[in-house]
Structure formats: C-alpha cells, structure tokens
C-alpha cells in the first residue's frame, strides 16, 4: 500500500509540490471554522460558569465533577446507557440470531426485504417520533391491540409513565436499528461459504455450536460496524427525545444530548451544557474505540 501511495504521489510535469494543500484548503477552512473551532470553544466553555449574557467566571473542573455528583446530571448519562441496550445490544442480538437462522439458504427477493428493513434509517427522526408517539398514545395502536387481546391491565400512557417512558423510547430505537443490523448481517451471512456449514454438520455440530463456530466469527467485521453505528446513533438521540417526551415525565427520559440543549438554551447554564457535550463526545469515542479494539484484538 505504501509503495502504491508513493507512485501516486508523483507530480504531473511542472506541477508545484504544494498543490495538495490548495485542493484541501477550501474544505479545511469551512470544516475548521464551523466544526473544529466550535468544538475547541466547547472544551473552553466547559471550564466556565456562564449564563450566556453576563461575564463568565472560571469554574475549574466543577462542571465535570457535577456530572458525577449532581443527580440531575448523572441521571441522563444513566439513561443513555440504558438506551444503549435498546439501540445497540438488542438490535445486534436480534439481527445475529435471525441472520444465523437464515444463513443456510440463499434468500431470493433480498433486495425487496433489504429496502423495507432499512427504511426506518432514512426517515427523519422527527417523523419517526411523531409516528411512534401516536402508536404509544393512551388511545394509540399499542393500547388498542392490548385491549383487543384482553390485556387491558397492561395498557397505559406509555410516554407519560415514569417507569415505562424510557423503555418505550428505547423500543423506538430498537425499531430504527434492528433493520440496519439485519441488513448488515444478512449481507455478511450470504457470503459465508456453504461448505463451512456442511463441514460443521459433518463434525456433528448442532445449530448452537454452528452459530459460535461458523456464523459468529465470520460476521466479526459486520458486528463491529453494527455496534459502532448503533452506539453513535443511540448516544446522539436528541431529535427523538425532543419530539416524544422532552425528557419527561419529570426527568425520566432525559439524555445527555437533550441535556446539552436544555441547559444551554432553556436554563442558561452554558458552561454545564458544554461540559455535558464534551463528556458525551468522550463517551462516544471511548465506546467506539473499545469496539474496534475488541474486534481487531481478536483478529491478531
């Protein structure tokens, strides 16, 4: 790869060496001004107490230590981790089980199924929120179905219930992400040579052994991609929370992404909002790096 790059690097006759910078420059200026600099400012703001109007005062690490000590800040991070079960763990597990069950045959009409299963991914989260809000409403589809099958006692205003609001929002995440995982794993499973399954069966492996010996290792790369995409999406779920619950009831569904907006633009605690944003970034990077380490570590 390196030598290939080197030969690419040869310039056309008479071309200055610095021309590469010229090509990068316009993109870099926009990217720096509207992404890198604001991120840097976030880090700086996170060390200040500021209400957005009057003079800011230094806060030291206060805004960060608050995340661990202040219950109204600790809770959103706890909720985010709970939501990761719904956004990430459940879709990956469901996707894996189904892909494994389907890996032995060639699926016809895969394009159709793939298009339908992936559809939730292209809908605006605001639209997804509106659609699910009416399903989860007190007189919505879910409760209608529960009453129709005689489970009246289970019917409840899902998004208004202190215990059920967070799992209800989580289920929407599972709905959005499962199709993505399934599409990823199906594509991967269709590439596994059928001889591997035959060999496993000749060795007397049951469905269970076959899954761990053949399917799971073959889908390692796809699992890493699925985990990365779902974790990032699960932690950046501002739109859904804003539309469906606004963090409520009480603070039952507040998440860091929502807390940044809430603190900066509704409570005028700009420094604290910036600290939550930076902490969220650290969390996302830590988790995604861990995922890729785990996957690559096993490979070597």
């Amino acid at each position, binding site marked *: 790869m390196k030598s*290939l790059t080197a030969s690419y*690097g*040869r310039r056309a006759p008479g071309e200055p060496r610095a*021309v*590469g*910078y010229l*090509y*990068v420059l316009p*993109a*870099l200026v926009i*990217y720096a*001004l509207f*992404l*890198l600099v*604001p*991120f840097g*400012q976030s880090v700086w703001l996170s060390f200040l107490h500021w209400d957005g109007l009057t003079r800011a005062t230094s806060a030291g690490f206060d805004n960060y230590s608050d995340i661990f000590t202040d219950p109204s800040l600790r809770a959103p991070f706890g909720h985010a981790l709970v939501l990761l079960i719904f956004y990430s763990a459940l879709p990956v597990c469901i996707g894996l089980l189904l892909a494994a*069950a*389907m890996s032995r*045959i060639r*699926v016809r009409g895969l394009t159709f*199924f793939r*298009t*339908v*299963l*992936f*559809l939730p991914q*292209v*809908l*605006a*989260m*605001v*639209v*997804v929120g*509106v*659609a*699910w809000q*009416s399903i989860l409403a007190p007189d*919505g*589809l879910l409760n209608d179905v529960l009453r129709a099958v005689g489970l009246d006692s289970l019917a409840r205003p899902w998004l208004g219930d202190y215990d059920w609001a967070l799992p209800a929002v989580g289920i929407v995440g599972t*709905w959005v992400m*499962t*199709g*993505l995982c399934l*599409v990823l794993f199906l594509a991967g499973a269709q590439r596994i040579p059928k001889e591997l399954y035959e060999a496993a069966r000749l060795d007397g492996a049951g469905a269970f052994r076959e899954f761990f010996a053949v399917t799971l290792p073959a889908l390692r790369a796809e699992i890493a*991609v699925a985990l990365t*995409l779902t974790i990032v999406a699960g*932690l950046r779920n*501002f*739109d859904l929370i*804003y539309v469906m619950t606004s963090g409520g009831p009480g603070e039952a569904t507040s998440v860091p992404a929502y807390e940044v*907006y809430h603190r*900066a633009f509704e409570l005028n605690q700009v420094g604290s*909002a*910036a600290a939550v*944003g930076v902490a*969220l*970034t650290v969390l996302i990077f830590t988790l*995604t790096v861990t995922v*890729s380490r785990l996957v690559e570590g096993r490979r070597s």
Partner: protein
Amino acid sequence: MSSKIERTFTYGILSIFAVISLTPVIGILSTAFGEKGSLNTGFSLPEGGLNWSNFSDAWSQGHFGTYLGNSILVAVVVVTVATVLSILAAYAFGVMRFPGSNVLFYVFVIGLTLPQEALVVPLYFDLRHYEITDTYWALILPQTAQSLAFGVFWMRTYFRNSARSVMEAARVDGANSFTTLWRILVPMGRPAITTMIVITFMWTWNEFLMALVMISEEGLRTVPLGLAFFQGQQTSDTSLLAAAAVLIALPVVVVYIALQRRFIEGMLTGAVKE
C-alpha cells in the same frame, strides 16, 4: 430441518420483520389520508376513499409550502458546496503526497463521530455574534462543515481505488492534476459521487437540532423544525400532523427507493474507518 421448512421459516421471519418495519409508516399514511380532525389513529383504510385535503391544509394552513422551500434551498446549497469541496480535498488525500496529509485526513475523519451536541452551543453564540443566526447561512455553513467529514472520507476511498493506469496515462499526456480530476476521475466516479450526494442530501434534509437552535423566525423554518412546532400546536389534529410528516419523509423516501443500493452502501461504510 429439511430445506423446505428452512425456507418457509426464513421467509416467515423476514416477512414478520418487514411488517414491523412498515407498521408505523402505514399508520401515519392512513392517518394522513383519514378524516380531518379525527382522533382515530387506527389502521383501517379511511372511509370514503383517500382524503387529500389534509395535505393541502398542511401545505397552506401549516405553512409547509414555505418550509419545504427553505429545506430545498438549504439542501441544494449544502449538497453542492459539500460535494465540490469534498471531491477537491479527497483528491489531494487520495492521490497526492504532502507533509501532514495523514494528520489532516484524520482530522476530517474525526468529524464522523464527533456529536453535534458538542459544538452546537458555542456555534450558536459565534453565529449570533456575527448576526447570522436566523439566516440561511446559520443552517448552510455548519451543515456543510459536518457533511465534509463523510464526503472527504468517502471520496478518498474512491480516489485511492480508482485505476492507477488511467491517471498515469493522463499524466503522460501532460494533463495537470486539475484536468485529470475533472475530465477523467469525476466522470468515472459517478457511482461514488451519487452515493455521497444522496447521503448528504438525506442528512441535511432530516437535520433538526441545528435548525432548532439557529432559527427562531417562522419564515425560515425547515420541514423537520416545522413539524416539531406543528406538533406542539396541534396535538389534537393528528391527521394534519400525519400529512405534514408524510410531506417531509416523501422526498427522501422516493430517492431512497430509486437508489437504495447507494444509500445502504454509503450509510454502512461510513462507520468503517480503514
């Protein structure tokens, strides 16, 4: 298991999940075509055939005509600028060698995982300072910057893999790097560029947080922002809300159905960093 049972089982599972995927979509469609003012969120086909009046009401009464216009303007500018700048930068990262190129490239790649929430707060105060909040610029500039992360990453892969012999030939012919790019590599790379365009379009079209923070003037709202405010006002009129939601989702869904392979490819590889 015999292969016939396996086959039935497989298609059964795929069908169940396809139905689960479609249920909320069908729900919102049936509400949108339903009787106006109806509280019925059921899934039966509305009586008296399809009712289009909700759409015209959402369009005029709900100002979604204006919001769609704003969304189209922002999306067209962001996609155009981000595409051109991404191609230029990715070309340099893909085929040229200059000091610092690797570091610079990774700086762009970081943008793929950097959450908006970590920059939206100072960005708001910066843009307010320069008095461009409540203008199209406040939507266009930040979203262009965010789109560049994916664009540069995606197009660099294309330039890395594009036929080396073609470029060598162009060089022997004395073409400079710019001519090689626009005359040969861009026309050749139409599939990769299409993927980048549809993904950037979708992200820009669906963007909510940036619009919520930057725009307070009603006439400048984009469609997702319009829907959120509409929902706040008219919780009782679910059919209008549903019609507005359909109007928002439609453009992306149409492009998605036409180019689903490009969409899926782009969205799934965005996470694979080398």
